[in-house]
Every structure is written in structure tokens, then in C-alpha cells.
């Protein structure tokens, strides 16, 4: 009896664990299957064509890809220095009480749903951008900034964690040679925690590029590549959120699936790089 139950338990758990792999495979195959119409119609030109006109049955993904890349790049550009600043403040500067108070608030803020960052962006940040830059305030720039604020808590928390892995004794050795705080951070902490810090940044990048709700309020869903950052734009997730329920033809529908597929591949690639290249095994001390 016990032997049968033992086998049953093993096989049940094993089956469910393998199901996780199957689900991922199923996601990929479903997205590919539903992208077929668009793949056949446009081929590779789907990603190089910049015209997205549902009424003409013309679908080019370039504006959405461009928007995803630029808004994420802007977000990283703004968030990285501030995240490093917060991490230095939390790991090397703040007095212990402030350290845990601010540290915990940052971790909790990372748990706030992204849709709330989007709402805040729409009601409070769009008017500011409008006042400063003119226009309607809904733009690539707004999306980049809101996105940077959304990923900031996550980035700051993981950067701090990575910095905190530097052994105290290593830092003390450098102080004992007459180093300043900044000498220690630049020569010891950052080189020591480099892989962890870069890995976390890339992980944050992976999250930012797939983020929907923080940007969909403030980007405008305009399929036009514009070098003017204050002009409305779109990204892959923004296009999906706005148009998925409106797709009325097979080609339109399939084009949206191809966008999903592209997004999934981009984010899988980024996250895999972070995970396998930078966050593998930590050096032991």
C-alpha cells in the first residue's frame, strides 16, 4: 500500500512539475500558430514596416518595437543612476534606523501594482509634462519617466542587495589603507558586486520592456516613429492593451499575436541573459 502511494505521490508531483515546461511550450506554440496568418502575409517585413493601418489591412510592427525600445531605454537611463544613488545611500550612508525604514518602504513600493503608477502618471505627471513641453503631455517621454519610476523600487532594492553581499572585512581592509567611502564603493563594492548589479539591471530591463499598465495610460498608442520624445507613441504592450479587443479581421488579430510573440521572445532573451550570464553562482568568500 505504502509503495503504491509513494509512487502515486512521486508521479503526481513529477507530472505537475513537467506541466510547467509544457505550459511554456504551449504558450510559444499557440502564439506561433496564431501568428501564422500575419507571418505568411508579411514575412520579415512585419518588423521593418512602419505603417500600421488596420483599416487598410497594413500592419508593420516597427513603431511598436521602436517605442518599446526607446521608452525602456529612457526608463533605464533615468532609473539606473537614481537606483545606484539609493543603493549607495542605503548600503553605505544612511544611519541604521533610516536604512531599515527606507529599505522596507522601497521593497513595499515594489509590490504596488503597476496600474497605479500608470494612474498617477495620467493624472499628475501628464499635466506637468504638458506645462513644460507643451503638446498634450501624453508622450514617449512621459512613458519613459513613469516606467523609470515604476522599476525604481525593484532596481534600488536589488542593487542594494547586491552591494550588501560585499563582505565588511573587505571594505574595512580598504578603509584601513586610507580610502574614502567613494574609493571603497568604486574600487571594492562595485567590482565585487558587478555581476549581481548588472544582472539586476538587465532583469529590470526585462520587466520594463514587458510592462503594460504603467505606460498604456500615458503613451497614446500612436503608430508613428517620431524623433520628438514629446510626441505620442506606442509600444508592443500598449498596442496589445488598446487594440486586442478591437481586432476585427484575421490579419489584424494575427498581427497582434505576432507582436505578442515578438515581445515574449525579446523578454525571454533578456531575462535569460541576466540569469545565465550574470546571476549564475555567486563567488563565495
Amino acid at each position: 500500500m505504502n509503495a503504491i502511494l509513494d509512487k502515486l505521490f512521486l508521479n503526481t508531483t513529477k507530472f505537475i512539475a513537467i506541466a510547467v515546461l509544457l505550459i511554456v511550450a504551449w504558450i510559444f506554440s499557440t502564439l506561433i500558430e496564431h501568428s501564422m496568418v500575419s507571418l505568411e502575409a508579411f514575412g520579415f517585413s512585419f518588423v521593418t514596416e512602419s505603417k500600421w493601418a488596420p483599416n487598410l489591412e497594413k500592419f508593420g510592427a516597427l513603431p511598436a518595437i521602436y517605442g518599446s525600445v526607446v521608452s525602456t531605454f529612457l526608463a533605464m537611463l533615468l532609473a539606473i543612476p537614481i537606483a545606484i544613488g539609493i543603493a549607495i545611500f542605503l548600503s553605505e550612508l544612511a544611519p541604521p534606523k533610516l536604512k531599515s525604514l527606507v529599505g522596507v518602504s522601497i521593497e513595499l513600493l515594489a509590490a504596488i501594482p503597476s496600474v497605479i503608477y500608470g494612474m498617477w502618471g495620467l493624472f499628475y505627471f501628464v499635466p506637468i509634462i504638458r506645462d513644460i513641453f507643451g503638446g498634450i503631455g501624453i508622450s514617449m517621454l512621459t512613458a519613459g519617466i513613469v516606467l523609470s519610476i515604476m522599476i525604481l523600487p525593484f532596481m534600488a532594492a536589488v542593487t542594494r542587495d547586491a552591494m550588501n553581499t560585499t563582505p565588511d572585512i573587505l571594505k574595512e581592509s580598504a578603509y584601513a589603507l586610507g580610502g574614502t567611502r567613494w574609493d571603497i564603493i568604486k574600487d571594492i563594492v562595485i567590482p565585487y558586486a558587478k555581476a549581481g548589479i548588472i544582472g539586476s539591471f538587465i532583469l529590470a530591463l526585462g520587466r520594463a520592456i514587458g510592462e503594460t499598465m504603467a505606460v498604456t495610460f500615458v503613451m497614446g498608442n500612436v503608430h508613428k516613429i517620431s524623433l520628438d520624445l514629446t510626441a505620442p507613441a506606442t509600444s508592443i504592450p500598449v498596442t496589445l492593451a488598446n487594440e486586442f479587443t478591437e481586432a476585427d479581421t484575421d490579419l489584424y488579430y494575427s498581427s497582434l499575436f505576432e507582436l505578442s510573440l515578438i515581445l515574449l521572445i525579446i523578454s525571454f532573451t533578456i531575462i535569460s541573459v541576466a540569469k545565465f550570464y550574470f546571476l549564475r553562482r555567486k563567488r563565495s568568500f
Partner: protein
Amino acid sequence: MATIVNIKEEKALVVKDFEFTYASADTPSIKKLDMPVAKNSITALIGPSGCGKTTLLRSFNRMHDLYPGNRYDGKILFKEKNILGPKIDLINLRIQIGMIFQKPTAFPMSIFDNVAYGMKLQGIKNKTELYDRVEKALRDAAIWKEVKDRLKHDANGLSGGQQQRLCIARAIAVEPEVLLFDEPTSALDPISTAGIEELIIELRERVSIVIVTHNMQQAARVSDYTGFMYLGELIELGRTEELFVTPKEKLTEEYITGKFG
């Protein structure tokens, strides 16, 4: 009152009426301590764990300042100046009073850059000068032969004993006047330990040394003077050969004969 032997040599450090209180504690961890440290000799600090020997050592280069809320009282004189005073330049102090830690602490950089680090901090950029001084420091630390062909390699590839020599080379490269050793061999095997001990004895000619050790034999082997600490106080400071053979204090005798600790 502690029994303190008269020291013939000049004094590298003089501790006067010194108290130290950790931020998290109500009572001082070191109480009213007086102690001289002789120049160009080796002073060992022994005592059971928690007696304050490492705390005292880390006061000499103000390492405690890295963590907020710790308090010093009294005086520690170094070159006739109180290093606990408010106007003391900590960076300068730490350049003159170097430290070696319980574990080897090779920085995440090449062997060469490890040794050159302290000099680079002082603004020495001249390549040949740097190279000459790195070589000299590595020779003095008796590790030159082992590393001369791989100066550009990551220092973490060295063995524990080699890394500790590297740390000593790094510390002496900036030509400090005092070197503090905090249980420098506690993470090493017996052979590496013997090598480090030999090195410490050789260094005596150029620097004044204070070494904290949990190992009485080590104190007996390397030091000229030995201080025995207990519960935050210095019980006895004597010439090493006298302290271990004819201790003046009963507590010292009990400790070195293994009655407690």
C-alpha cells in the same frame, strides 16, 4: 591596577585612561585602560574571547568609526597627538597605521593592483615608481617569487596563505609606522601560519607591531611584549619571556596555565 612593565624603547602608541563603548551597549567594552606600545617591537594582546583585545586594536586606526554611534573616551597618543581628538584626519591616520585582518582580504583586482592600491590612493601615478615599490613590497612579504610571473592575474586565484602575504605586502607598500594584526593566521593552515609568523618577526625592524591572537604559543613565539586582557581591562603587560614564565598577576597565571578561557 594593572601590572605594567617599564618599557625601555621609545613608544609608538600610548593608551591613557581609554574607554570604548559600542553603540549597542550601555557599558563600556574597554574600561580605563592604560598601555604603552613599544616602537619597533612586537606587542601581542592575548585573553579570552570577548576580553576586548580586538576592540582595542581596532581603536588604534579608528576602525570603529565606520559604524555610527560607537564612543571613545580617554586618549591614545600617536606621535604625541591624541588620535581620538576631533581634528584627526582619519585617512592620514590609517595610512600611517596599517591593518591585517583575520581572513585574507584580497580585493577584486589583479595582484599588482592590490599591492599598488594604497599608493594609488595617495596619488602616486608614476608607472616605474609604482612598479618598483610593488616589487619591493612583494619581496619584503616573501611572495615575490611566487607571483612575479602573474602580477596581472586576479588575486583571488592565490591560496589563503599567499593572499595573506599579499595583504601584508599591500599594507607595507605604503610604509606605515605601525601595523595592526588581528588574528592574522586564524584562517590559515600550520605551514602558512609559520611563514606569516616569520614574516611578522622580520617586519619588526621597520614598523611597530601590535598583534591580537587567540593562540598563546603564537604570542610566545613572535612577540617582545605581551599584554593580557580580561573583561575589558589590561591585567598585565610584560616582556613576553617574563610574562609566560613568571606572571605577576594571579589572573594571568591562571589564564596561561589553562585554568580558564
